[in-house]
C-alpha cells in the first residue's frame, strides 16, 4: 500500500468535516430516539465514519451510491441534506421520501443516493444496474455498493461480483467489515479470514484496508474509483472497522468482546483525525471547534425542521404505488 494515493490537507479537512457531521448526527439520533421524539429503528454507524468520508471526497454528486439500513454515514458523506434526512427519519412529508421510506429506505437521487435497502445483500445487484447504465451511456459515473461483513455470505454478493467482473462494470464493492452481523461475530459467520480475498473468485482486485485509517482508506477508494472510471472494471474493498454500538439502538451490545470494543472506541477515528489535523497544524483548535459548532447548528436546524414538519396525509397510501394514483 506504499504507493497508494495520499490525500492532501484540504482533502483531509473535507473528510474530517464529513466524519464530524456523522459523529454529531449519530449523537443526536441517540438522543432523539431515547427521548421518544422519533420512533424508528436506528442503526448507528459510529466507528465507521472514515469509510464513506474517504470515498465521497473521491466522488462527484453525479456518482451513485447504494447503501443499507446502517447508512446515515454513507448518506451524509455523499451530501444528503440533514434537513431532508431528519424529516425522513421523523416520517414527515418534507423528508426525502415523504416519510414513506423511513430510515431503512432513504433515497435522494439529487445527491446520488439511489437505493437504501433493508434486505442484506441487496445493495449489490442494484448497484450493478446503475453501473451498467453508466457503461451503456458512457456517462463516466461510478457506483459504490456498500454492504456489511454479514452480507458477504449471502448469494447476491456472489452473483453481483461475478457479473460486475464479467461485464467490467464501473462499480466499487465496499464491504464495511464492522466485525458483527447483528449478534454474530465475523468469525462465526464467515469461513474465510478476509472478505477481500474473495475478490480472487472473480478475478477482481481485492483490497483489505484499515477502514479507520483516513489515508489508507482514501487511497484504496481512489484506486478503485479511478479504475472504475477508467473502464477497467470493479474492485472489492474490505474496509476493516468496528461497530461501536449494538446492532441497533436498544441493543447495548453486551455480547460483544469488551476489550476489543473498548480498544476500538479508544481509537475513535474522528477524535484521532481531529487531533492529528491540529497537531499537524492544519487546523487550530478553534477551527476544529468551529466545524463542530457549525455542524451542531445545522443539525439543530435540521431536527427542528423535521419535528416541525407535517406528517403525510393518508392519501399517500394510494400514491407512488404506480405512476397513476390508485382509485
Amino acid at each position, binding site marked *: 500500500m506504499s504507493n497508494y494515493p495520499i490525500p492532501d490537507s484540504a482533502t483531509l479537512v473535507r473528510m474530517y468535516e464529513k466524519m464530524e457531521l456523522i459523529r454529531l448526527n449519530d449523537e443526536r439520533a441517540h438522543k432523539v430516539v431515547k427521548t421518544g421524539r422519533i420512533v424508528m429503528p436506528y442503526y448507528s454507524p459510529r466507528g465507521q465514519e472514515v469509510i464513506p468520508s474517504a470515498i465521497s471526497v473521491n466522488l462527484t454528486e453525479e456518482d451513485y451510491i447504494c447503501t443499507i439500513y446502517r447508512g446515515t454515514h454513507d448518506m451524509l458523506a455523499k451530501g444528503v441534506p440533514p434537513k431532508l434526512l431528519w424529516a425522513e427519519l421523523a*416520517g414527515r412529508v418534507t423528508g426525502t421520501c415523504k416519510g414513506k421510506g*423511513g430510515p431503512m*429506505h432513504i433515497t435522494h437521487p439529487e445527491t446520488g443516493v439511489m437505493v437504501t435497502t*433493508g434486505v442484506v445483500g441487496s445493495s449489490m445487484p442494484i448497484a450493478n444496474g446503475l453501473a451498467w447504465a453508466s457503461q451503456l451511456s458512457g456517462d463516466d459515473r461510478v457506483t459504490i455498493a456498500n454492504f456489511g461483513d*454479514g452480507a458477504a455470505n449471502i448469494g447476491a454478493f456472489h452473483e453481483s461480483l461475478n457479473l460486475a467482473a464479467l461485464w467490467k462494470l464501473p462499480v466499487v464493492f465496499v464491504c464495511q467489515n464492522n466485525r458483527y452481523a447483528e449478534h454474530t461475530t465475523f468469525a462465526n*459467520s464467515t469461513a474465510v479470514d478476509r472478505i477481500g480475498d474473495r475478490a480472487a473468485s472473480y478475478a477482481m482486485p481485492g483490497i483489505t484496508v484499515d477502514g479507520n485509517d483516513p489515508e489508507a482508506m482514501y487511497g484504496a477508494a481512489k484506486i478503485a474509483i479511478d479504475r472504475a472510471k477508467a473502464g477497467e472494471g470493479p474492485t472489492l474493498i474490505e474496509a476493516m472497522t468496528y461497530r461501536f454500538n449494538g446492532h441497533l439502538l436498544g441493543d447495548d451490545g453486551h*455480547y460483544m468482546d469488551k476489550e476489543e470494543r473498548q480498544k476500538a472506541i479508544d481509537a475513535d477515528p474522528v477524535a484521532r483525525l481531529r487531533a492529528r489535523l491540529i497537531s499537524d497544524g492544519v487546523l487550530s483548535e478553534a477551527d476544529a471547534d468551529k466545524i463542530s459548532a457549525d455542524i451542531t447548528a445545522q443539525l439543530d436546524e435540521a431536527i427542528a425542521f423535521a419535528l416541525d414538519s407535517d406528517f403525510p396525509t393518508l392519501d399517500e397510501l394510494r400514491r407512488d*404505488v404506480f405512476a397513476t394514483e*390508485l382509485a
Partner: protein
Amino acid sequence: MTEKMTIAQALNLALDDAMAEDPKVVMLGEDLADNEEGGVMGVTKGLSTKYGKRVRSTPISEQAIMGAAIGASLVGYKPVAEIMLMNFTTVAMDMIVNHAAKLRFMSGGQTHVPIVIRTMTGAGFSVGGQHSDYLEAWFAHTAGIKVVAPANAAEAYGLLLSSIDDPDPVLFIENMPSYWTPGPAPTRGERIPLGKARIAREGKDLTIVSYSRMANEALAAAEALAEDGVDTEVIDLRTIAPWDQDTVIASVKKTGRLLTVHEATKPFGVGSEIAAVVNEALFGDLKAPVKRLGGAFCAVPFSKPLEDAFAPNAQGIAAEVRSMLSLDPVD
C-alpha cells in the same frame, strides 16, 4: 387457568418441549444460539445452552438455511428453521416452494420434508416496507406446504408443537409487534390440531374470519359491537392452509354474513379465497355480500400515521360490520 405468558415465552416453551421430547428436533437460523443472544427477539433463548449443537446459529444465508433444513429432514430430522422476517423468505423461495413443498410429490412419496419454517412479520413496528409484509397467500397457493399463524400465547404453543409433529413442511408465522403481549398460558404438552379453526367468540349476527394479530382486533371489535347489541362470531383460522372450510361455512350458514380480515393487502389475499368458497357454498343463503378487509395496497409505509392506517384495526372492523348490518356508523 389464570396464568399469563407472552407469545415469545410460549414459543420458547414449545421449542423447548419439542426438543426435550424428540431428539430429532433441531434448530437453525440467524442469531439463534445463546452465543448470539438466543435470537434477535430472544425467542430461542436458553435452547442452545440446553441442547448444544442441536441449535445452530447460521450466517446470513437464507438459501443455505432452508437447504440445510430440507436436507436433514429428508433423512429423519425435524428441523425448525428460522427465517428472521417474512420478507426474507423472498431470498429462499426456491428452496421453500420448488423443493420443500414439492419433494414428497416429485419423489412419489419416497421422501418428505417435515420442517417448520418460523418467521415473524407485521406492521406496527416502524420498520417500513421491507420488514413488515404478510405473504401467507403465496404459500397458501402453493401445494405441499401448510401455513399456520397463531393469535396468542396458548395458541402459539399448541400450534407450534403440532407444526413440529406434522410430517409436512409448515410455515409458521409469528406476529412481531405482539411477541410481548401477555395472554393465556398454554397447558404443557397440549397440541392444537392443524387445520381446525377456533371459534374465538360465538355470535349469531355476522361471522368474522381472521388469524394472527387481526383475530384479536376482530375480537376487540366484537366486544365493542356487543355493547350495541350486535352479536359477532369471530373465527380464528389458526391454519391458513389447508383452512377449516367446515367450521367457517357452518358459521356463515348460521349468521348469514361474512367479513374476512387480514393484515396482508386485500387483492388476491387469503380473504378472497374464503369469500369465493363461502359464496359458492352458501349461494342464495347469504344476507349480505361477503366483505373483505385487508392492508392497504402498497408497501408498508414508515411514517407513523400511514403505518397506523395501513392495517385493519378494531375500530375499522366494527365500522365495516355495522355497515354490513346496515346500522348507522358510530363516531
